[in-house]
């Protein structure tokens, strides 16, 4: 297949170093079209193992950056929700993504100050490097993921106001080198056993990620107060939360051949030759019997 579009980084992804010319023709990786070769977490190591005669294990190749333990815990939880123990993807209707990437900020300069009136203000400058996102991965949803341990008594509600601004270097206009988009929104959530708060920033980051931006520089300012804006007007008692700088979670649809496409697998199953024809269920006539079912029945059938 012709490679569709370029991979993102000039180098093949993973920690594969471009082999010297001499070994080039022996490395199967080089026979793959560029589009396939790059940006594929699983492929290069598999090919590398196959191309090596020796017993050298891949692990000695993977460079050191170990992920944040909280981030790892969150992604294991996401894995359990998305796949069976054998690793088969679960068929969720809402599950449109086939790739989820979690980035922890590569650097952050924290400013933290308290303003009793406004509660506990936690503002931090974050820099995310998105080099691993390939050109074939299209953004579906982006989320700032806060994990926090709080001494707040369980089952109390917290209201947070989040002020988000991104900084980008606008080279076209030397006058104002950095342009920043900002947005402010408040979110209210119940603290139960919740260790994570997800702040949906899709609409805010979409334009930046769509332009294949490699580095995302943003300032996040989070103010949290105890209480529920609906019930009591004056929010008191700033929440003393130990906020860890947020991670960035990207839900993506990978359009490359190796990625699993739910809609494609359904289409493929219908088309494959010699398949015993699937006995289709009797056509449900929305206006027919089904349509007359009362709401309980509908709810019950949906629950079933």
């Amino acid at each position, binding site marked *: 297949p012709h490679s569709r579009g370029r991979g993102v980084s000039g180098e093949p992804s*993973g*920690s594969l170093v471009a082999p010297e010319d001499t070994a080039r023709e022996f490395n199967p990786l080089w026979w793959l079209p560029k589009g396939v070769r790059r940006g594929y*977490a*699983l492929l290069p*190591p598999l090919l590398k*193992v196959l191309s090596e005669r020796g017993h050298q*294990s*891949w*692990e000695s190749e*993977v*460079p050191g*950056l*170990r*992920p944040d333990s909280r*981030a*790892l815990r969150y*992604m*294991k939880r*996401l*894995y359990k929700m*998305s*796949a069976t*123990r*054998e*690793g*088969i*993807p679960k068929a969720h209707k809402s599950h449109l993504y*086939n*790739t*989820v*990437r*979690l*980035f*922890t900020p590569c650097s952050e300069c924290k400013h933290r100050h308290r303003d009793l009136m406004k509660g506990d203000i936690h503002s931090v400058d974050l820099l995310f*490097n998105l*080099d*691993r996102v390939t050109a074939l991965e299209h953004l579906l949803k982006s989320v700032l993921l806060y994990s926090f341990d709080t001494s707040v008594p369980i089952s109390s509600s917290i209201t947070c106001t989040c002020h988000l601004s991104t900084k980008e270097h606008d080279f076209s206009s030397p006058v104002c080198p950095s342009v920043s988009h900002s947005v402010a929104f408040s979110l209210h959530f119940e603290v139960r056993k919740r260790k994570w708060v997800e702040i949906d920033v899709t609409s805010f980051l979409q334009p930046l990620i769509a332009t294949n931006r490699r580095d995302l520089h943003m300032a996040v300012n989070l103010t949290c107060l105890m209480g529920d804006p609906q019930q009591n007007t004056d929010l008191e008692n700033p929440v003393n939360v130990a906020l860890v700088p947020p991670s960035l979670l990207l839900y993506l649809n*990978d359009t490359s*051949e*190796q*990625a*699993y*496409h739910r809609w*494609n*697998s359904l289409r493929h199953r219908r088309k*494959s*030759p*010699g*398949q015993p024809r699937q006995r289709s269920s009797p056509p449900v006539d929305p206006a027919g019997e089904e349509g007359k079912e009362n709401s309980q029945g509908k709810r019950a059938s949906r629950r079933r």
Partner: protein
Amino acid sequence: RAESTKDTPATTPYNLSQYFKQFLFPQNECELHNFRLSFSQLKWDRWIIAPHRYSPQYCKGDCPRVVGHRYGSPVHTMVQNIIYEKLDPSVPRPSCVPAEYSPLSVLTIEPDGSIVYKEYEDMIATKCTCR
């Protein structure tokens, strides 16, 4: 029948069951075999977080001479068999290969320390065919 008895020396008793034997299914006929590996065997468990075990399965066995619809094989498979038997034995007999796969979800750590959940197509063989 007259020619065949003329050709074959009188000593060989003409045996009907012998003749039909060639149409029976081979003993080790083409079918799906289990294979289970753990990524720690390949020493990949440092960067593949989940799943711990993976069963890619594989297809192995001989393809019967008259495959027909049994393996979902196209007519070409029988043609290839005839070529091998009657015209040119250097042409390989049909092979036992996977016909269908199922995907696999993998959780890996990238070299930059980020974590990625990915669903890969065609990672587990679920059905075999003769081609």
